[in-house]
Every structure is written in C-alpha cells, then in structure tokens.
C-alpha cells in the first residue's frame, strides 16, 4: 500500500508551497494543473484521515492558491483581450476577412469567431467541473475557494479595464479626424493602402461599443460560473446532507 492510499503523506509529498521558504508569492508563478493536482492530493489525504486541523493549510499555501488563480485569470483575460482586438476588425470588414481567410480559412465562420471569444468561459466551466467534486471537506474547500476567488478577482479587474479601454478608444482615439490622419500616414506609401486603411477603420468604429459590452458580459459570465456551479452545487449538497442528518436525529 502506498503512502497516498494509507494517508501517511509527508510534507515533501504535499508540495502546495506552504513550506517552500521562498518568503514571497509571485503572481505569475504556478500552474493551474499543478494546483488541481495538489487539491486532488489534499482530497485523498482528507478522505484517508478523519480530522485535519484547519491551520495545517497555512497562510502561505492559501496565498499561493490565490496567486495561481489570479495569474491564471490574468493570462486568460489578456488572451481574451488580444483575441477581441484581432476578431473585431475581421468581423467588421469583409475584405480583411477574405484576405486573412486565404491563410486561415476558419475565420470565415462566425460561429468559430464567437466561440474563440468565449474561451475564458469554456475554461471556467472546465475548471469548475474538474475541481467541483473535491469541494466537500474543509481543507479542499479552502484551497478551491482561494483558487477561484483569485481568478474571479482578476477577471473582474481585467474586464473593467478592457471595457474602459474600448470605450476610450471609441470616444477619444478613433475620431473621424484621427482616422483621416491615419489614412494620410498610409497615403505616403500608396493610395490603395490609404483607402483600404480608412475603410477598415471606419467599419470598425461603430462596432467597438457593442463589442465592449459583449466583452463585459463574457467577463461577468466567466466570473459568475464558479459561483453558480461549484459553490451553489456544493451548498445545495451540504444542505441536503444537513437535512438528512436532522431527519435521523428526529427519529
């Protein structure tokens, strides 16, 4: 029987950063798959042993889970912002879409572009379905909560920033004068390039505000998914267990 099955895990086997001695947690260090693996280890240990004190899961370990969630949310949010910036002109201008479709034929499909924009939401759903079933004991609950809170926290901040940047872009940067100035810059090279640039940017402008709201909704959904899947299901399950306990106590 291995040490994992017997529940006799040494601190070296539980590497969730609590005894790392590094003294600081880096926001971008750590990997989501590592965090999920550590939650699985913790779940096995909690199933094997009846009672583990809450303070076994130290402040450093909690902060590490928070920072892994935060860093992951940051990467997802940045990727989402980059994808939105790439997809917006493609959706706005047919000519540009045909030009890119020569090398990347998938951009012709609106469903594909929309699904690509929804990637943070898909990742949130995958993550919640992976960790959701472990949220039944005290330490695993803490670990999952810190991971998801870090992620949600980052997504909220980044969603507001992306929305703000897009609104600012529409209001101050992409004015008619600025578009003409940009076209003049291209005109130094060729008239066709200037005309194409003017047409593409003019097509993008009216679609920025709807895209900004769409971005905000997607970020809100990516933030709310953990609440409604993991936390809500877990609380409903706990309430059902409590109800059955009360029923047997009455008997």
């Amino acid at each position, binding site marked *: 029987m291995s040490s994992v099955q017997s529940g006799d895990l040494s601190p070296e086997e539980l590497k969730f950063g609590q005894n790392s001695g590094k003294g600081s947690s880096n926001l971008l260090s750590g*990997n*989501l*798959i590592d965090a999920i693996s550590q939650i699985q280890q913790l779940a096995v240990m909690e199933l094997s042993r009846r009672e583990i004190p809450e303070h076994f899961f130290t402040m450093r370990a909690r902060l590490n889970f928070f920072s892994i969630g935060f*860093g*992951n949310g940051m*990467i*997802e949010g940045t*990727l989402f912002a980059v994808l939105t910036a790439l997809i917006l002109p493609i959706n706005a201008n047919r000519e540009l879409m045909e030009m890119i479709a020569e*090398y*990347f*034929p*998938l951009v012709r*499909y609106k469903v*594909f572009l929309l*699904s*690509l924009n929804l*990637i943070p939401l*898909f*990742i949130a759903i*995958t*993550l919640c379905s992976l960790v959701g079933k472990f949220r039944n004991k005290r330490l695993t609950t803490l670990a999952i909560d810190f991971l998801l809170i870090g992620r949600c926290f980052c997504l909220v901040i980044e969603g507001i920033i992306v929305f703000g940047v897009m609104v600012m872009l529409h209001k101050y940067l992409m004015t008619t004068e600025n578009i003409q100035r940009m076209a003049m810059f291209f005109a130094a090279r060729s008239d066709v390039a200037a005309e194409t640039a003017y047409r593409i940017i003019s097509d993008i402008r009216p679609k920025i505000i709807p895209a900004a709201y769409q971005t905000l909704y997607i970020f809100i959904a990516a933030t709310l998914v953990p609440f409604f899947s993991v936390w809500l299901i877990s609380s409903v399950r706990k309430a059902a267990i409590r109800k059955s306990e009360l029923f047997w106590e009455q008997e």
Partner: protein
Amino acid sequence: MHNEIIKIVIGRVITVGLVLFIVPGIYLFENEIQLYFPEYESKMFFAAVICFAGTAYAVISRNLIVLVITIVSTIAVPFISDWFFYYL
C-alpha cells in the same frame, strides 16, 4: 461492488461507441450534416476542435510553445487535408 463494475463497463462501452461512431461519422455523413448546416465542412470542424483544445490547454498550462503549435496545426489541417485528398 458488482453494480459499480457494471456501471463502469456500461459507461466505457457508451463512450467508446460514441467515439467510434462520431469521429468517422463526421467525415462519412458530411453531406447529410450539410443539409441542416449548409456551411459545415469536416476538415474545418476538426481544425476548430484542434484550435479550441490546444488554446485551452496552452492557457491552463501556460505554455506558449503549445499555443504556437496549435495555431500552426489549425492553419495546416485544411491544407494538408486538401493535399491528401487531391493526391489520393
């Protein structure tokens, strides 16, 4: 114990059956699917699946190389598919 084993076996049979049916089905029943979704193309569907799975994995594992490989393979799949069927 007996019930657990039966459940696992039934689950695996259904999963394998679905995979064995769906993967060739996407290619074999392309015309039938196009009756309902006229823009559907099998090679594009596979390219999209590769793109989504690879991007999600690259983001979760924070691996830029995986992301680059995913983008390259997404671009390459339709061309390789065309080339393969042209010379077949």
